[in-house]
Structures are given as structure tokens and as C-alpha cells.
């Protein structure tokens, strides 16, 4: 039921997530933050049962914190962070899976550009990992992926990216059965 939308722009990424917390026909709250900041330069948008959202994001962020304390000055790149998340999901799959569909977005310094570059990874609960320019988790993908397919291009500014996310949310408002009155939006950049 959750909608997670992620868009990469020139110099960073933004992730938007609906803020509903619901089970069956009951909505518990309209202000749940489903985008965890797992590292100083990385955000993880998660969709799934509340318990798994929390247990997975906290496990990842605390392990990343331990790594940064044990290895001062060596920040894990977004790619390494994504590999770590994937590995965690893949190992848990055959034991007790984390039922989370996620979008990982991060910022890394880059020799090619002063503003650095953003990268986005699509990670599903079975541990498939794919680097993408944009992505959507949840039913929302059926509606809004076509918007992104049409409107995303290389070299977007942050404002343009936000506008595109806005367009996605409008499509959901119009055509998606579930009412999602509020969205949270976060970005990872310099």
C-alpha cells in the first residue's frame, strides 16, 4: 500500500514516501516517516509492515554507524552501502525475511564534479539490487512509472526533480484507490 518514489538529479537524489500507517481498513496515523537516514549521506525509503520497516532500517543504520566508528575517516560509498543492504536481505530471505521494498539514495563526492553525484538503488525484499536513475516501490509504480519514464532526463536540477515527483503524486491522487493525503520528501546531496 505504501508508495515510495525516488528520482536522481544532477548532484543528488530525492526520495518521497507517503506518510500513511495503515493495517487492513484502519489508518493508524497520517504522519509516519518512512524515509530513514541510514548514514550521513544516504537515505532509505522503505515500504512494508511497520515492524520490518523499523527493524531493517535500524539494523542497517546501526551497523553502518559501527563501521564508521571502527574505521574513522573511511565512509562507505553508496554502492558499498547498497551491497551491504542487499546482503542483509539475501541472508535473511531463507531464515526470516525482512518484508521491505526499498529505494536507497545516496550522495558521494566525485572527482568528475564539484557537486558530487547522487546514486539510487532499487532493492527488493528478495535481495535483488539494481542501480537506477529513478524508481518506485508499491502499487504506485503501476501509475507513476510512466510519468517518470516520460519526464526523467540526465542533468535534472533539484527543482525539476521535485516537480516530477509532484506530477507522480498528482497521478496517484487522481487514479489510485487508496487515499494518501500526506507525503514526506527527503534529499541526499552535498
Amino acid at each position, binding site marked *: 500500500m505504501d508508495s515510495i518514489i525516488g528520482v536522481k538529479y544532477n548532484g543528488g537524489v530525492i526520495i518521497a514516501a507517503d506518510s500513511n500507517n495503515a493495517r487492513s481498513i484502519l489508518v493508524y496515523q497520517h504522519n509516519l516517516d518512512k524515509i530513514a537516514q541510514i548514514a550521513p549521506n544516504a537515505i532509505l525509503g522503505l515500504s512494508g509492515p511497520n515492524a520490518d520497516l523499523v527493524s531493517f532500517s535500524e539494523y542497517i543504520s546501526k551497523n553502518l554507524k559501527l563501521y564508521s566508528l571502527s*574505521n574513522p575517516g*573511511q565512509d562507505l560509498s553508496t*554502492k*558499498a552501502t*547498497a*551491497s551491504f543492504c542487499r*546482503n542483509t536481505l539475501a541472508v535473511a530471505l531463507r531464515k526470516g525475511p525482512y518484508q521491505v521494498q526499498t529505494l536507497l539514495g545516496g550522495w558521494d563526492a566525485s572527482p568528475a564534479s564539484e557537486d558530487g553525484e547522487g546514486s539510487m538503488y532499487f532493492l527488493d525484499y528478495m535481495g535483488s539490487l539494481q542501480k537506477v536513475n529513478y524508481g518506485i516501490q508499491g502499487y504506485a509504480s503501476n501509475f507513476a512509472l510512466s510519468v517518470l519514464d516520460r519526464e526523467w532526463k540526465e542533468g535534472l536540477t533539484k527543482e525539476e526533480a521535485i516537480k516530477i515527483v509532484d506530477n507522480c503524486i498528482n497521478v496517484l491522487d487522481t487514479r489510485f484507490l487508496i487515499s494518501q493525503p500526506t507525503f514526506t520528501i527527503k534529499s541526499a546531496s552535498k
Partner: protein
Amino acid sequence: MARRYDSSTTTFSPEGRLHQVEYAIEAINNAGTCVGLRCSDGLILASERKVTSKLLAPVKTSEKTYKISDECVLSVAGLSSDASILIGQARLEAQRYLYQYGEPMPVEQIVTQICNYKQSYTQYGGLRPFGCAFLFAGYDTFHGMQLYQTDPSGNFSGWQATVIGANNSSGKSFLKNEYNKDDAGIPDVNSGLKLAVKCLNKTMDSSGNGPEKYELFVMREKEGGGVEHKTLTKEEVKEIIDKVEEEGKAAADA
């Protein structure tokens, strides 16, 4: 008398020393020398191959230098059988990291893991320490080319240039004078190789050594990322030994 506190690794002596660890360090001072040099364009590991008998089969790959991962190599001084276990452990840890993070394990982390492993044999289990020291040469994107030295106590330190094994003190004092002489700058690999051979000549017992007594290894950064490993062939080693001899003669005549 220290004797009563010698036998167990896991006991301090009244003076606060771990004798077994110290004896392990002694064992390495009888082993073939290893020299490590950080150069402006790479890293050199130069080792002495102690040939104990003419009947020994010629070395197929390396006797002293071992690859841990695509970005990390080490040379051994001490008990080869002990080293073999630790090398296997280092390779396993490096691959585990690569499996989990999708990126090569940073060199200092490999060194720390192995040293923690060595340290555990000085604190519990009632087992003796590993009788070998390593020179780790590796590359990572955080600190570039790095050289580390480890010993049986599980201590390690980073170096620009260092020597382990037999006569390491004379080797080190030679390097103190010759490496980065008068702040002229650290040598490039070509000069570094000659310096390493000169250093080994100083630490080796005999003189007039043939190329089979030296094992020379170079690690260089590759275009487009990663590193290349090169163990010099017998001919290339001979070239360097000859050059060093020439230069030595020229300096003596001058």
C-alpha cells in the same frame, strides 16, 4: 628467574612481559629478510630467498610473497607453516568483505583483522603465538598505496620503508640514510628496486648473490583503477643486481 613464567602464553611475568610473544619475535630474526618500500609510483616488496639445499626444487611461484586480494599482497618472515594459516585467514576476510560490501576491503582493515587474530593467540586458548611477521602492501581508494608491518604480538604500524627478518636493524639503518636521502623525495619504482637490492645485500650473509636469492615484487596503480602485480623474472632481477654492482664499483672508484 624468568623461567617459571615462560611456558604459558597467557601469563604475564612479574616484570609485566609476555615471554612467549617475545620468543616468537626472536624466531623471526632468523628468517629470510623482507624489505618493503613505498615509492612515488608504487610499492616494492623485496625478499631474500634462503636456499637451504641445492637439491630443493626451483620455486614455481613465490616463496615469500603472497597475494591476499586483487589489491593486497604480503611478504612473510618467520615460520612458513604459521604464515600459511594467517594468509588463508586474510584471504577469507578480504573476500567476505568483498561479498558483503561489493568493494575491496581497505588495507588497514585487513591488517587489523589479522592482527586481532594473532592477538587472540596471546591471550586465550593456551596456544602458542604465530611465529611470523608480515609486510602488507596494498592499495585502497581512501589512502592509496600503503605499507604495514605486523608481528606475533598482534601489533602493527604503517611505514614508508621498513625491514623484517634477519639483520633487520642493519637494513633499517641503511634505509634511514638512503631512503628519501636529504629530503630529496621518495624514489620511483626503478630507483626503489635498486635501493631494495642494496638493502638486501647489506642484510644477507653472503655476497655475490645470484638472482635466485632475491624475490622482487612490485605493485603499481593501473590506469582506470585497480592495481597491477608484478614479480620480476630472473633476467629482470639479474639486470638490477648488475646495475647495483656497477654503481657500487663506480662510487668506490670515484
